[in-house]
């Protein structure tokens, strides 16, 4: 018996000398989990490893990996001395697209041009420009595309309204369907009723 034999090796490898054999808590047909981090280790090590603990470890590693992008930050030597102004400049940087790396904000980018734009924004903020004025300065040069959030104008009307249009269309269809006369189903024939009664 293949399965029984397999189960025996599982439990025998866990058994301490002198202890009684405990039944393997795993259902017999569940394979031992293959954990990439432990690939290549001997089978006994893998089996001794508790899957619950392994999953916890894997989750921890995954969560830590999730944090990696947080380190992607463009670092500047010169920041504004005024902490408040620097914070405002940084919040603007979050909304500005890096034209070299394209799907990153200039705050996240280490590209040369992004650093220039950051300094440009700092200069504008230091000069007392409002957030809107700073963004207008950039849009005037690089176009709307430089903003990560598309502005609302005639070119982006469709972009902003298409979801609502689709939703309205769907609701209209639903409403129409609800208004349609429903056809009452024909009553069962005697033969059908008899069959139905026979069913357990």
């Amino acid at each position: 018996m293949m399965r029984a034999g397999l189960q025996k090796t599982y439990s025998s490898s866990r058994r301490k000398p002198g202890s009684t054999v405990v039944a393997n808590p795993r259902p017999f047909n569940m394979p031992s989990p293959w954990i990439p981090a432990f690939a290549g280790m001997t089978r006994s090590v893998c089996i001794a490893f508790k899957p619950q603990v392994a999953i916890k470890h894997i989750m921890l590693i995954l969560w830590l990996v999730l944090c990696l992008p947080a380190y992607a930050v463009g670092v500047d030597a010169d920041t504004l001395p005024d902490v408040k102004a620097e914070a405002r400049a940084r919040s603007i940087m979050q909304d500005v697209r890096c034209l070299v790396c394209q799907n990153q904000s200039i705050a996240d980018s280490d590209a040369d041009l992004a650093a220039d734009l950051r300094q440009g924004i700092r200069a504008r903020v230091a000069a007392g420009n409002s957030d809107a004025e700073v963004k207008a300065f950039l849009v005037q040069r690089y176009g709307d595309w430089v903003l990560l959030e598309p502005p609302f104008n005639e070119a982006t009307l469709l972009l902003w309204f298409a979801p609502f249009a689709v939703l309205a269309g769907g609701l209209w269809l639903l409403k129409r369907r609800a208004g349609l006369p429903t056809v009452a189903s024909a009553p069962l024939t005697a033969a059908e009723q008899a069959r139905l009664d026979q069913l357990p």
Partner: protein
Amino acid sequence: MMRRWLYGLPLLAAMLLGGVFLFGLQPTRNPQELRSMLLGKPMPGFDLPALGGGRFVAADLARGQPVIINFFASWCVPCRAEHVQLMQLSSRYKIPVYGIAWKDSPQNVAQYIKQLGNPYAAIGIDQTGRVGMDFGVAGVPESYIISAKGLVLYRHWGDIRQEHIDAQFLPVLRGEAQR
């Protein structure tokens, strides 16, 4: 049937979608092209140290004819690739070409020019890239055709190849000359 027209709807939808795809597949369409915000607008002013001493200011550009302003850098490989075309534009087509060295040092630019030849009527050194920012330069090479009146007629993104001269530069320059 009241709703017979509904049967035509899938066909209509398919045709509409086909039209969208056909539009997207046009060989001349480049979805990555970003139109310069300066098109049709006056060129931004600048005042830069010139290569070889003195200043290079916007007012120094040749008057009465369209000119080309080319942003380049000695560290930029596509700039080397397009250099032959710049030489051609200035010597064969007699278009005044001006260079702005973007984020580059005067020493390196001098070396670069010595190595490859000089197509430029004047070269400004934009070491910080501030003038580039005013032009909306996102990288080098980028070239601008400036009209006789100082308006931006065309922005070329990337290196200029022979086919660009034929298909874009000459038509724009000729159209301007006829005016």
